[in-house]
């Protein structure tokens, strides 16, 4: 089912999606009330391309008015993301420069907080937020497969094959997360906690869909993926330690320990074999690779800032 609307704009968008998408034309819609109102509308339009909604006709995925509205919201989102990055892409050999760029990025760390001081309730809150992406982990990157040239395509599929369990559905990463959610008493249905997700989490997901769905943004999509993998091993180890500290179920701990070693391999493939090969063929993509990587880390900072702030208010 469609999520709850967060303002007059998303309310009208959802109503039109349930009945008649031609009402999504610009002139018929009120302005968005706030960031949540915009983000939930765009998230829902993207979701038509992932798993859809019971209350939206599947044919509307490609309805011209829905696509037109999506394009308008995407254009605003991309401009906002590009405006966040005021740096310049580092020079030098790509893989070294990329790893250094990621290592030098400094931001608030949810994993560190979970490791040392989060309460069980705060950890469950975080897992609910993570579920929005982790239940479709890697899916937005998979959209990029047919859009890449031979070498980066082969490398991306090599990485995705591991993400998707190497053929064994039990080992598919988003299935591991679903089982982890159930093991700690949370709901594992796709999108179960979407109404609880703040704009920062929605926008983090929207950026991945934006990059994944546009061939033009293949550099950003692969840079985002590489930064995601390159910022996963150590935080996953901290998450596992925090969950152990709180005595949470082994299944969820296992999800994170799996990512400590899996992503230590994935980061090498993503940086060297995917992005490196992409740039060998298309050196002009270098700026966008770093833009995507920055966006990945910057949006995680925003999510962390929001959640840490929220928890501090309650404490």
């Amino acid at each position, binding site marked *: 089912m469609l999520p709850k609307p967060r303002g007059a704009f998303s309310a009208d968008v959802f109503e039109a999606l349930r009945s008649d998408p031609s009402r999504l034309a610009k002139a018929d819609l009120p302005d968005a009330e706030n960031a949540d109102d915009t983000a939930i509308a765009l998230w829902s339009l993207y979701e038509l391309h992932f798993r859809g909604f019971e209350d939206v006709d599947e044919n509307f995925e490609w309805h011209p008015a829905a696509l037109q509205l999506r394009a308008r919201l995407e254009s605003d989102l991309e401009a906002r993301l590009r405006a966040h990055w005021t740096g310049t892409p580092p020079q030098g050999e790509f893989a070294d420069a990329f790893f250094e760029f990621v290592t030098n990025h400094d931001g608030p760390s949810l994993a560190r907080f979970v490791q040392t001081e989060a309460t069980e309730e705060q950890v469950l809150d975080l897992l609910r937020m993570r579920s929005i992406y982790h239940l479709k982990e890697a899916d937005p990157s998979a959209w990029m497969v047919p859009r890449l040239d031979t070498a980066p395509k082969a490398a991306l599929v090599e*990485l995705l094959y591991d993400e998707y369990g190497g053929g064994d559905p039990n080992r598919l990463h988003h299935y591991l997360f679903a089982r982890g959610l159930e093991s700690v008493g949370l709901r594992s249905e796709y999108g179960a906690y979407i109404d609880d997700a703040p704009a920062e989490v929605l926008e983090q997901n929207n950026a991945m869909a934006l990059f994944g769905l546009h061939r033009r943004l293949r550099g950003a999509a692969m840079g985002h993926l590489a930064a995601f993998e390159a910022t996963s091993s*150590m935080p996953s*180890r901290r998450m596992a330690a925090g969950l152990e500290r709180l005595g949470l179920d082994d299944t969820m701990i296992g999800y994170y320990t799996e990512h400590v*070693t899996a*992503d230590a*391999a994935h980061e090498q493939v993503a940086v060297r074999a995917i992005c490196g090969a992409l740039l060998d063929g298309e050196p002009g993509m270098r700026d966008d690779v770093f833009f995507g990587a920055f966006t990945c880390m910057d949006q995680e900072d925003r999510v962390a800032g929001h959640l840490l702030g929220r928890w501090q208010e309650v404490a």
Partner: protein
Amino acid sequence: MTAPEFEYADVELCPGGPMLLRGEHVVRDVDGGTHRTTGPLSAVCRCGKSAAKPWCDGTHKLLPEDKRP
């Protein structure tokens, strides 16, 4: 257009980082214990500082450059 032959290795020494393994392998550690890879991609620690040995856990990134493999 000529279609090039790509260089592709099953075992790759990543500069400053781990040894990347593609495919199934059994790795013997320094104490003689054996460890089977669990997926198509694995990374073996080369810096000696991993907490998940014989596998890499990304710790090499915290080392000064001259201490990396």
